[in-house]
């Protein structure tokens, strides 16, 4: 479990980080919290000749609460996000989702940016962020670009990031009034276990009807999957058990799960159905202002 020899760099600015990474070429990896990267380097699932540590890059730090929403720096640790009062105010479901992840050590070390950029299919922060219409700001040698979070993921452990490009921040626009969110996940043990299936739901109520809904599935597809058929069923309907059951079945049908040691494809579909109903119920209750 030794990491192969590599060089280590610790730039002090974003521009320097991008420049360095561009110059070092294909064998470079950005080091954020390291909780996934180091495991991958030890197990030889990934290889790196150079590490560029983002620890000292000020542009990637902090959580800002602004008029246009939350700006979460990519290097914010999961614990920092979960404990942030701004997050608790603006998007409490995200903090809840994070508390289901890893143990305290992992939450202290791992960053939200790393959770996006390592792009494992069971990552817990992307589904809610996608549901909330997050936008990602990327910076590289060619300058900056902003893209919707749903366009970021290409496949398992694959993103649109170009060599030398860094995820700078996750921007969550303010949630409209009468909106509620929920993240429901299933794992095999009481703590420290990855999601076998997960569902993020966002519901905006328009009076007695669902004005807008978004359901994103985690751990059951190569990338966080926007459940479009499921969402289509919900729009403009009054929230009701039968509706949610139909939405759950639709989500289960559009999931693309695999069979592995944690569960079969069929079981994951069943979980998606159940978790979708639970997420929709909770999100709706929250949209109504009920405490859940």
């Amino acid at each position: 479990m030794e990491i192969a020899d590599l060089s280590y760099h610790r730039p002090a600015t974003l521009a320097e980080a991008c420049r360095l990474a561009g110059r070092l070429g294909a064998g470079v990896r950005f080091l954020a919290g390291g909780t996934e990267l180091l495991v991958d380097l030890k197990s030889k699932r990934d290889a790196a000749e150079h590490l560029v540590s983002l620890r000292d890059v000020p542009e990637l730090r902090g959580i800002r609460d602004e008029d246009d929403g939350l700006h979460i720096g990519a290097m914010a640790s999961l614990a920092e996000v979960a404990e942030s009062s701004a997050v608790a105010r603006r998007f409490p479901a995200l903090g809840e989702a994070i508390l289901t992840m890893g143990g305290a050590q992992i939450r202290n070390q791992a960053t939200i940016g790393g959770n996006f950029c390592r792009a494992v299919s069971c990552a817990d922060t992307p589904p809610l962020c996608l549901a909330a219409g997050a936008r990602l700001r990327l910076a590289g040698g060619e300058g900056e670009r902003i893209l919707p979070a749903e366009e970021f993921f290409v496949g398992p452990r694959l993103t649109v990031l170009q060599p030398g490009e860094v995820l700078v921040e996750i921007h969550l626009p303010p949630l409209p009034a009468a909106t509620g969110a929920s993240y429901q996940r299933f794992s095999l043990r009481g703590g420290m276990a990855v999601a076998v299936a997960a569902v993020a739901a966002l519901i905006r109520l328009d009076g007695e009807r669902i004005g807008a809904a978004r359901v994103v599935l985690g751990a059951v597809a190569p990338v966080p999957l926007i459940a479009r058929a499921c969402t289509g069923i919900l729009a403009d309907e009054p929230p009701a058990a039968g509706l949610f059951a139909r939405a759950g079945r639709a989500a289960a049908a559009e999931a693309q799960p695999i069979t592995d040691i944690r569960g079969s494809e069929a079981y994951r579909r069943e979980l998606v159905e159940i978790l979708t109903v639970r997420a929709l119920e909770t999100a709706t209750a929250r949209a109504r202002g009920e405490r859940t």
Partner: protein
Amino acid sequence: MSGRILVSLKVNGREHDLAVKPNTTLLHAIRDELGLTGTKCGCESGDCGACTVLLDGRAVNSCLILAVDAAGAEITTIEGLASGAELHPLQKAFIKYGALQCGYCTPGQLMAARALLERNPNPSREEIHAALSGNLCRCGTYPRIEQAIQNWRSAADQALDARPRPDDEQDQQRDLQVVGHGVTRYDAPDKVTGRARYTGDIRLPDMLHGKILGSRVAHGIIRRIDTARARELPGVLAVITGRDVPDTWYGVSPARYDEQILAKERVRYVGDEVAAVAAVDEETAERALQLIEVEYEELPAVFDPEEAMQPDAPLVHPEHPRFARNVNTKVEWHFGDVARGFAEADCIREQRFVGNRSYQAPLEPHAAIARWEHHGGRLTVWSSAQTPHYMQHMLARVFELPMGSIRMIRPPVGGGFGAKCETTPLEFCAVILARMTGRPVMMKYSRQEMFYHFRGRHKQYIDMKVGVKKDGTLTAVQSRILLDGGAYTSFGVITAYYAGSMLPTLYKIPNYKYDGYRIYTNLPASGAMRGHGVPQPRFAMESLLDMLAEDLGLDPIEIRLRNAMEPNTRTINDLDVSSCEFKATLERARRESGWTEKRGRLAPGKGIGVGCGGFVSGAGYPIYRSDFPHSNAVIRVHEDGLAVSLFIATAEIGQGCDTVLPQIAAEELGIPYERVWLAECDSVLAPIDLGSYASRVTLMAGNAVKMAAAEVKSQLLKIAARQLGCDPHGLTARDGRIFIAEHPQLGMGWDEVARLAFSRSGPVVGTGYYQPPPGLGGTYKGATVGTSPAYSFATSVCEVAVDLQTGYVTVERFHDFSDAGTVINPVTFHGQVEGGIIMGLGETLLEDVRHDRRGVLLNPDLHGYLIPTICDTPAIHSRAVDSYEPHGPFGAKEIGEGCLPPILGAIANAIYDACGVRATELPITAESILRGLKARRERGGGPTGRGSTT
């Protein structure tokens, strides 16, 4: 840029300037560069938390941080928790509440707890769970850790007090001063401060590090090994292959020595050891392994015992013609007449049960060091061994050395549960590499290599049939079991016998037939795991009893009571049960668990179930033929009479023997516990003890210690009698005084008498030994396995909540009642019960080592192989019933293993009560329960199991 980088690390308030390689983790920098070995290495991948340190006040896994990346941060390790000699209140609380067993996870637990309390001095149960879920404890000390954290401040108010504390739960009234009291664990202060040095923490001058290369094919012939490139790597000092190791076959059971240190020709499972390297550091050794080229002729492999028994199946050991059809061990027992028994039965149930490959997963990976001494052919071996003597014996045998020329040292062991009972290629290769290089060599398994070396639970395929009369009385039990042995025998002969021999110890079975077949497959070898061979057949039997009780309309506890073993009984298979309060455990369970009020009355999805079990208190016979007593002890009184030293070579693996044995010594001697020093476990100091397996230590080593103490006492009483002018028989030694029993005011200080004795004739020494009663067991083949001087009994009542939509099981509560004889130390006793329940819970619901079609393991890590966390811990009410075992020291017998077998059946029966799904395969996954629920719905069954069968 890949050379060393100068960094300044601030650790425990001190700046250290280090030149580290960029790929060095903080864990290795702390341990290897700074020598702070209190921070432990358990998995190297962030799954266990043993390496937890504080980084700017936050708990982090130091295995997942590069040392260079930690520069500039404030780092606190376990060594920085106490301020000088004054322990941190949390450390005191851990000691007070017995919140540690093997101690390997303890530094990590303490650091995680410290980080929590810094932010939240009054955490709730949920907050403690959230903060500590990343710290695994395989001993299952979670309930005590939680208690210590909740009460950390009140522990701080009190001075550290090692005086005996009467335990509030003590059921037993004995006139004893030290035994029966929850005295502070002897090993606790070292384990909460990081001072305890486990084998992997030892640093010897000039020490090299070795690594072993495992086969990448499951079955094959080695056609070529080229080690040239590995030898040329700078820093490599020796490389060995099968050619360099003795031809001697070794193993555990003399009748089945089938292992070689490194494969000579054939490899039999993925991971089978083929070559080893010694280098200046682990990184170089690991790199050298990658440079060894091995060419295999791959052969067909077999991974399923039923397939392995087919006539055309590949043979795992073709060199040994006796293992035809891959049958490693065959047991065919028939006691009474089962045909008649079943004919007499009113109700019969027959069912197939399939077990799992669960693994001990001790938090400390196995480690060994070998050093050849400069005085002629002497060898010192350190090993994290449960059975140091068997290792010494096997090393002597394989290397053709006199046993006396080998010095075995057993440092603290970070959990064993049966995984560290046998000599491994680590010890053997370390000895060979140390001889070749002239330097000490340390060898360690990585977490992954632990899973490949395995020696975990045999997966059993059990066909069991049970017949009863209308009133529930058993008429016959028949079981046929296939045990998946993996590639080598290990303890498997004994496992195959135990799987049959222990079943009739719990219930009176008038007719019993057992056919056991242990089958070789091309998988890692199965071995002896806590409860050795017993838990899976017990799971089958306890499930069948519930099924029969339902058929007959009987209460599950009632059917057990009607068949329960009674004291002074010879079982159908010739085992002699002496003390037995099994019925008391059942009756108290019924009374105190709320059984009657809850059974059949809980909300849908909630259920209650019962399971029973027990174990031997030590095996009646040793593993290799020997007339030596099984346990031996020496006690020496110090010159001033205010201390004694106890020399005994047992293995503290977390179970508490380093505390219990000094308690027994102190009680018998009549002195306070704090006056006993325990010498290191070192064969130069202490005579042989067979080690910590088969739950033998309390009874066997306890008896040896008691005898040694009695011998010392008798010498002192004679001298005191002369001084006091009375008969020695009229004297009592108690609490540091020797006095006339009838006139307690007439006496002398124990120390005064001891000084007199020393002054008169030099050292006062007592010796003791324990040999099981001769002739235990019957005369049939295999009759020795299952014999014991005493048996433990236990009843566990479990409450679960099943999520009827996902199948997820939450174990909410356990009420556990044990007959373990006299409880020597209630803190370590209940710690073992709690740990057994938590381990049993993992085995029942979570754990299974899986492999692919080529024999490659799919989850050889603590990320894919899930063991219980603090969040999975139920509320546990553990009680000891009043019991006295005449063969045990002060009436004691075992607790460490007998507490586990009841758990599987109790959970399975509770799940059935909750949702009507009768689980017959382990582990009982949420997915399998959901499948069962669906099948029930399709058949039109209701939401719960009551009153209906599946």
